[in-house]
């Protein structure tokens, strides 16, 4: 098993490890292009400027929560506290300022404080007390919803004009929320791929035991995954509060499933390990455009749901087929190595 470093014949195959990135990226890009072509052929209106500027903010939101979920999934976890976290950020940033722009920064700080606390709470339960991630985060979700009701009583409040301008406005022709999503992607990608912390984080996700053997602080990294995720959910929540003029107190509910879907579409294994932030973000665009396509086709709701399910199945299917081909190649390499 130690042989690969010295096998001359293994060398040409050595380029394989770089393939997974290409694979997931290429897959999601191809799926998206196919979808765009289908849109162009059947419902060009779904790609018009007005439609895009209206729907891109929602793609940005899915991208941001998807990045949060990605970080947790990379550590082999699952974060089901997302709906509560997003909803709490929404109600804090609308109810606390109560349409007073001057109080907005306070609201953002309070929302951040809640996000960090919830993240630490999740992280401690999962990484230190070793609770099952799904169960622990469901519990946290209930707590967060308790806070949502305490803040809002379940009642929507109108957003402040300042936040509406920041989150709902346009800069250089793109909705600001898209810029926020791009910035979040850049930060996550850079930290994950180019910094020591990020490399360790990913290594631990791939194999916590090996990480521990290498002397890495496994539990701390696992704990921090939940904190980073909460910070991203908080950002998404604040953006929703700005994009929707009068957001409900349950705005996070519809984001849980898409957040997991984009992580899977982006090619990250649910068992943890390597993460693909850029593919995840493209998958968010894909998913959003898909629902926009289904809406624009103008078929009954039942058919809309079926179209979405089929196209999602197609997206994942394309990925799975390539995956099995690669698996065969990989096992062949392994066999070659074992024969050595």
């Amino acid at each position, binding site marked *: 098993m130690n042989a690969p470093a010295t096998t001359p014949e293994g060398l040409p195959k050595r380029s394989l490890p770089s393939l997974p990135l290409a694979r997931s990226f290429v897959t999601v890009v191809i799926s998206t292009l196919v979808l765009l072509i289908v849109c162009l052929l059947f*419902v060009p*209106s*779904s790609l*018009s*400027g*007005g*439609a895009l*500027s*209206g*729907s891109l903010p*929602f793609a940005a939101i899915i991208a941001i929560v998807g990045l949060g979920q990605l970080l947790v999934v990379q550590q082999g976890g699952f974060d089901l506290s997302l709906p509560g976290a997003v909803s709490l950020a929404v109600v804090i940033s609308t*109810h606390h300022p*109560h349409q007073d722009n001057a109080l907005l920064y306070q609201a953002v700080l309070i929302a951040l404080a809640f996000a960090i606390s919830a993240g630490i709470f999740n992280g401690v339960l999962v990484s230190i007390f070793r609770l099952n991630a799904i169960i622990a985060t469901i519990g946290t979700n209930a707590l967060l919803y308790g806070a949502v*009701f305490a803040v809002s*009583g*379940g*009642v*929507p*409040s*109108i957003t402040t004009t300042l936040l509406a301008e920041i989150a709902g406005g346009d800069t250089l022709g793109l909705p600001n929320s898209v810029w926020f999503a791009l910035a979040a992607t850049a930060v996550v990608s850079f930290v994950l791929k180019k910094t020591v912390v990020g490399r360790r984080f990913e290594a631990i996700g791939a194999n916590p035991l090996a990480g521990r053997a290498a002397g890495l602080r496994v539990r701390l990294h696992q704990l921090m995954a939940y904190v980073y995720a909460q910070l991203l959910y908080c950002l998404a929540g604040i953006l*929703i509060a700005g*994009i*929707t*003029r*009068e*957001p*409900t*107190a349950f*705005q996070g509910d*519809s984001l849980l499933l898409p957040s997991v879907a984009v992580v899977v579409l982006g090619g990250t294994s649910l068992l943890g390990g390597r993460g693909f932030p850029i593919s995840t973000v493209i998958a968010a665009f894909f998913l959003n455009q898909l*629902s*926009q396509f289904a*809406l*624009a086709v*103008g*078929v*009954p*709701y*039942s058919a*809309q749901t079926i179209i979405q399910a089929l196209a999602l199945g197609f997206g994942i299917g394309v990925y799975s087929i390539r995956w099995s081909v690669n698996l065969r190649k990989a096992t062949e390499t392994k066999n070659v190595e074992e024969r050595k």
Partner: protein
Amino acid sequence: MNYASFGKGLAFAVTAAVMALGSSTLAKAEVPSWCGPKEASLALLDGYGGNSWRQVTAASGAQTASLCPSITKYEYVDGQGDTQKSISDIKATAAKGIDALVVFGDAGPAVLPAITQVYKSGKVIVPYRVIVGGKEGENYSTFVGTTFVDNGVAWGNWIKEQFPNGANLLYLSGPAGNSQGLEQLEGLKKVLGPEYKYLNPEPFDVTNWDPALTQKVLTAEIAKNDKIDVIVSDFGPSLVGALPLFQKSGRSIPALATSDGNSLGCLWHEVKDANPDFKLFTVATGTDNVRLAVQWAVALATDGKVPDTNVYVAPAFEDSATGKPNAVQCRKDLPGAIYLSSELPAEDQAKAVGQ
């Protein structure tokens, strides 16, 4: 001159004083006919209490009950959207000795067995607004419903006035297949002929009454349809975030037939000058439906005179074209999530929604 004006003032003051006296004695004497002499306790059981509409409704119910001095005790119980809890709430409230129960049966027929059990034990029980199945006099004392078909008819008539030669309609409602949406469509179709074209997929665009989803749906519809003359929606306030999308694509917000909400009225005042086609017509959102149900329950429990009808008809509320019955209302100083069509004073509603 001075004397004359003094005299006028005096006459005015005296009249005012007499009127004030008269009305105050009137107010004291005015026990409503549905309030009988027999003492009773009353509870309002909500299936789900977590939004402003429900909070205003609950406050309206309490206020109605307080008009009857024979009601010795009033309780409000929130089922929190949990069917199990709603069922046990109904049974527990009856077991505690409350005489009359008004039930918002969100879970539908699932709560009927509990309602029937309470009715059979000799209590007064009045389910309202959400159809729970069963029969009057067999499963419950009476059912106080509302006619969503009439909403559709009211919208249809208004649309006919605004666009006598036909129009392109976009009809939005809540979750897929909800009966309210279907009944309203029935009303619309009663009034509007084939010259009125529905742009949405049959039977309506699904929005779940969620402002974010409404925004997405409207985005797609705006892009797809160059000419939308009128939007019909059964929850006006959920459109508040979505309507400015028309301006973003360089078009005027079209005419809108919907239900009222403070935030919607305020939006209309804010953008009406920039959007010449934005005419607004609303029907009352129905937070007063509970009053009729409470009146029935109180009348039956206290031996009062039962109301003439057990169907609540939501009246028309605002019309920006004619100003009748009201011009578009907006209370900027109060929360957006209140309903100025409600009989409950706006300030009390603001208190009820906790802002």
